[in-house]
């Protein structure tokens, strides 16, 4: 079980990684979020931001207490459908923490340059490049400009 500072044990790190693979599974040539090695990034962000830390802590704690996981020797030993069932149960029993936890996983996953390449997003800061857009073309106003003024006189 993680301690209160959100440092997690090696065993919990394995659980986290397995959970991350289910939250964001493999796609095309990309492995799942856990197999991509992003558990450490999640841990790091959770250590910096209290809300994410609490969510991570609660989810891992709840999984460690899950009866099916205990009986079978831990979450990682469960079959995939059992793991999914365990997460789905958490999602409905503790939605606030689970949602925050999912956000945490999405944040680290969609911060990764490999993922950016896959989805066609330019990595890095928004500036100084910005984006190109054609300048405003007033011809688009043709229809609406024909309308009589209709603001209410007061």
């Amino acid at each position, binding site marked *: 079980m993680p301690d209160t500072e959100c440092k997690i044990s090696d065993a919990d790190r394995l659980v986290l990684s397995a959970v991350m693979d*289910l*939250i*964001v*599974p493999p*796609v095309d040539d990309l492995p799942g979020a856990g197999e991509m090695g992003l558990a450490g990034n999640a841990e790091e*962000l959770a250590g*910096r*931001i209290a*809300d994410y830390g609490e969510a991570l802590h609660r989810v891992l704690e709840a999984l460690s207490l899950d009866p099916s996981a205990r009986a079978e020797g831990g979450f990682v030993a469960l079959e995939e459908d059992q793991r*999914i069932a365990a*997460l789905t149960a958490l999602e409905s029993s503790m939605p606030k923490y689970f*949602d925050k936890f*999912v*956000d945490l*996983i*999405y*944040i680290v*996953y*969609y*911060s990764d340059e490999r*993922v*950016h390449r896959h*989805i*066609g*997003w330019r*990595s*890095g*800061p*928004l*500036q*100084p*490049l*910005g*984006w*190109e*857009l*054609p*300048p*405003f073309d*007033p011809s*688009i*106003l043709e*229809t*609406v*400009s024909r*309308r*009589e*003024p*209709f*603001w*209410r*006189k*007061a």
Partner: protein
Amino acid sequence: MSTTITHPPTDILVLGSGASGAAVAWRLSNRGFNIVCLEQGRWIKPEEYPNEHADWEIQARTNWAFDPNVRGLDEDYPINVDESPIDPLMFNAVGGSTIHWTAHTPRFHPSDFRVKTLDGVADDWPLTYDELEPFYDTYDELMGCSGINGDPANPPRKERPMPPLPIGPDGERIAKAFDRLGWHWWPSDSYVNSVPYKGRKACNNCGNTGLGCSLGAKGQTDVAIWPEAIKNGVELRTNSRVFRVDTDENGRATGASYYDAEGNENFQPAKAVVLAMNGIGTPRIMLNSASEVYPDGLCNSSGLLGKNLMFHTYAMVSGLFQDDLKTYKGALANMILCQEFYETDQSKAFVRGYTYQVARSSGPISTACGHMFGRVPWGAEHHAQFARRFSDVTVVGVIGEDLPEEHNRVELDPDLTDSNGIPAPKVYYELSTNSRKQLDDAIENAEKVLHEAGAAQILATPFLKVAGWHLMGTARMGDDPKASVVDRWGQAHDADNVFIVDGSVFVTCAAVNPTPTIGALALRTADYIDRERSDLKS
């Protein structure tokens, strides 16, 4: 025992350096007044803005979050929102919330100043659109307004200093849908440079207008107003957190007390005090300035200080398209607006109306976490759903006119404090039935336009919680001292040298973003001080 550091007196002491404080300081410094401005935050350097960093989307949710309760910086103050379904949003630095704002800048309509007369609700303002118009024009020029004349939903006005921002292929798609329905639309007015303006660069469409603009293309008062005000001689004192406006035995202000960065208590004497700490910060400090003369808070003989808080009620209807238009390109919330449903329609079950502000999508983290279209599901469906939502979403945002109600209010929290130990505000707010009906109607019509535009899927968020962008009404203006805190010039009824210039003075909030109106009112108050109050100039 700590001693108070007392500074040499000044003519005008401005509290807060945001949209309103900067405007008043600039105008009065042009007219020969000595001015000190106290600001609890600091200068932000362009390279600090998230858009300069690869982790900008993470910063937007943490140390640069819109919500001060999430950000939790030392210069922020916490806000108790246990009794409010809407979270107030603001930024505390030189430039105030204009650092964070998206700079969508429509004006009030003439009818907005006369809602009691026209629709029998709330109150009329003690001034008219015509009186405010020249100040709108000046504020537009100061901050830099992009836009175009000819809008049939608004009165004719002076040419904007710059042409509109690009509306992009996504803007054109939805504009044509409005045309087909025969509904109004118009390119948004924005305090974002479409071309280089007064030494500041043009916007390069990076998208995230709300996170501070390192190009200087967005009208933030730290770049658009303060440099000139400081050249005029204004002393802008940062890291200076005001905890009390001090008064004499007659109830006139003598100056303000504040903590500096080291936690020392300071006193800045002044001939007049101008409060510009926004619709929550100003009532907070006024309530904290209770004294023998003012047992219920500074200049609160009406009992209305902190009451009639208005936010604007927001809903969001998102359309998911399949044209891959890369809708993250372009200023986030500065595309087009629609004011077809702005005025009271007798056939409907609610009064007053709403504006649609059409907005774009954002980066991959926002997409996944559901900023625009609900959180993408986890698990087997994740990638397919993400792919559908990323890069082609258009959002029709609803801004509903929120009517003033006394029970919606700001009080001092008995326990919560900021990092200096100053009591924090607690916000009480209930969504009215009128607002709910307005939002429901707006959602229905927004769905129509998104259908018309060809959206493959539409998702309505019926009420936005993290949407307290606009803070208004908590020290309203009026001619009757029993029914208002300040008069038509922003001068407190109870003390002739206390002025309020932020959104607190709003009587009603219209159905548009408030800041051009806040700026115009601030300039008008400054003109009044210059014209009528030579006693305040040394």
